């Protein structure tokens, strides 16, 4: 692409609609809200407090414990997704993209259906399945003689978060699958054919040819997972409630934020501390995204086909 010295209006035209809508309806309101983190109510008046809210969040053990707990849980939530969701997604996409696979469209659709379901249903059905009372999971484990493995996973502090993460994986595996699938489609057949001729087939072909070529897509998936997980909220809210039980073991940043910002039950929403948490979350996510954009994405080689 040649660099041209004149003003390139078309760049502005291409960017304008997106930037306008996005700025007006997302950025302005959001930053207006984040701005609240610098204020607090004192005697019913909104006063500027500078970084004091942050001092409270990180300095007051009641706040900071909850925050670090949520952050820790969130990190684990993310780790499970990275270790389970994305590899499964990539594997499914790789299998689905093998040429001439019969029924590929069926598999693809079937595997994608959970992603379409609303959280309400997802929460309901998994609670039903995993419930110790109604017998689906215990019954099925019983059928294979593993009844002893059963535990009320959603109710146990040590399992609940992982269980929820796996449910979330179940629900969202369609996302990496589809994205990776789209990326795989863009690999020219001839390159794959050349690999076949070179004797690079099966797994080796996946590792040595396909994977490097879809690396940018995997990068995107990772960052989307990261951002998605650190903003996650609904699933836990639906299954465990805003208090993210048992004993806050499933509390992640999203639920913590929601509880604080919008309030819950007798707890009155605190937009100022809420915004403070949101800003902290935003900082964490931004750090991750910047790391990706500047350290990883730039190093990822892209190939034009």
């Amino acid at each position: 692409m040649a660099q041209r010295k004149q003003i390139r209006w078309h760049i502005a035209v291409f960017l304008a609609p997106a930037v306008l809508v996005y700025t007006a309806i997302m950025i302005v309101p959001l930053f207006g809200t984040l701005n609240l983190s610098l204020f607090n109510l004192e005697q019913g008046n909104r006063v500027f407090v500078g970084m004091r809210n942050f001092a409270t969040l990180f300095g007051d053990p009641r706040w900071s414990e909850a925050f670090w707990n949520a952050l820790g849980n969130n990190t684990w939530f993310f780790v499970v997704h990275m270790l389970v969701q994305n590899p499964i997604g990539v594997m499914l996409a790789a299998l689905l993209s093998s040429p001439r696979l019969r029924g590929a469209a069926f598999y693809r659709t079937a595997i994608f259906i959970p992603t379409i379901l609303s959280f309400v249903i997802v929460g309901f059905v998994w609670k039903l399945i995993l419930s110790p009372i109604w017998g689906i999971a215990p019954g099925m484990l019983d059928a294979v003689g593993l009844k002893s493995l059963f535990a009320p996973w959603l109710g146990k502090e040590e399992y609940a978060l992982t269980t929820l993460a796996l449910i979330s994986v179940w629900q969202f595996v369609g996302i990496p699958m589809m994205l990776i699938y789209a990326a795989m489609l863009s690999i020219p057949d001839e390159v794959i054919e050349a690999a076949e001729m070179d004797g690079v087939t099966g797994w080796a072909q996946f590792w040595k040819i396909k994977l490097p070529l879809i690396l940018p897509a995997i990068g995107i998936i990772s960052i989307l997972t990261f951002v998605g997980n650190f903003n996650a909220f609904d699933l836990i809210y639906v299954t465990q409630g805003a208090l993210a039980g048992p004993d806050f073991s499933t509390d992640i940043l999203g639920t913590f934020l929601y509880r604080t910002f919008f309030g819950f039950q007798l707890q009155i929403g605190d937009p100022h501390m809420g915004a403070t948490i949101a800003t902290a979350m935003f900082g964490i996510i931004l750090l991750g995204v910047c790391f990706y954009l500047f350290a990883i994405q730039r190093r990822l080689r892209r190939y034009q086909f």
Partner: protein
Amino acid sequence: MGALTLSQVTKSFGKTDVIKGVDLNVDEGEFCVFVGPSGCGKSTLLRMIAGLEDVTSGEVALDGVRINDLPPARREIAMVFQSYALYPHLSVRDNMGLALKQAGVAKAEIAQATDRAGAMLALDALMERRPAELSGGQRQRVAIGRAIVRTPKLFLFDEPLSNLDAALRVQTRIEIARLHRDLGATMIYVTHDQVEAMTLADKIVVLRAGRVEQVGRPMDLYNDPDNTFVAGFIGSPQMNFLNAGRLGLSSDKLGIRPEHLGLDHGASAGTDRIPGRVSHVEKLGGETLVYVNTQDHGLLTVRMFGEHDFAVDGAVTLRIDPARGFHFDAEGRRIR
């Protein structure tokens, strides 16, 4: 090791029949060249042999074993793709070394093999570049390098030299010939270059619209073509086809190669002389091509060694040596 037999092989893409029943034997160690007009099915045939395209009907056998259903990776075939198909994410070295690495060859040995191929193809300075940073000809050389670092039973080359300059082309051609000699591997080679076809081939297969027109040794095809198609296709510039009737001959067409026509200044007459006017002259340095408009036979080409001057539109006389002519019937079949 490497004897290939195709029996009644056909291939259709949907409703388009591309290969319409090809029978062919390529002996072990033979150098077989496919020639034919663009789109006649050469690449498709190669791809079928490689196993990249399934055979609609017929049989492909390697060393007497039917391999229709054998995956390409297990056929021990190396191929140079017409479109290169380089691995965009690998350096030149890794592009060439991947097959060896996959086969578990030791690192040092791979390095040695790729270095040798790189040197041979004048790619030494570019070994660490990626395909996107190479020129067209360089990419083509990487594709060749990738095929020749391996030692397969069968090599398939699809127009491997088309983007190379003359010097490099001669050099690479010689390397391929040497490779063929040294490895004793069977090679199938698609080219549009007459020189490559004539110099490399043990056997030339002339294809036309999915069918084999003639198979033979290079000079046999040149000197003894079966029909006007082969006669016209082998040899460049193309053979002249004269109106045999006008020359008082019983055949339909008389084919005479441009190098077998004599050309004199000025008009003169005689049974084996044809008057005409110079249409245009092409000086190629070592030879000169003169295009002559004749009344009875249209535009005829004369090829002469060295530099010659003929004025455009000047009257000339063509001399025919009937002994060097080929007779064809109305269907284009050779009358022997």
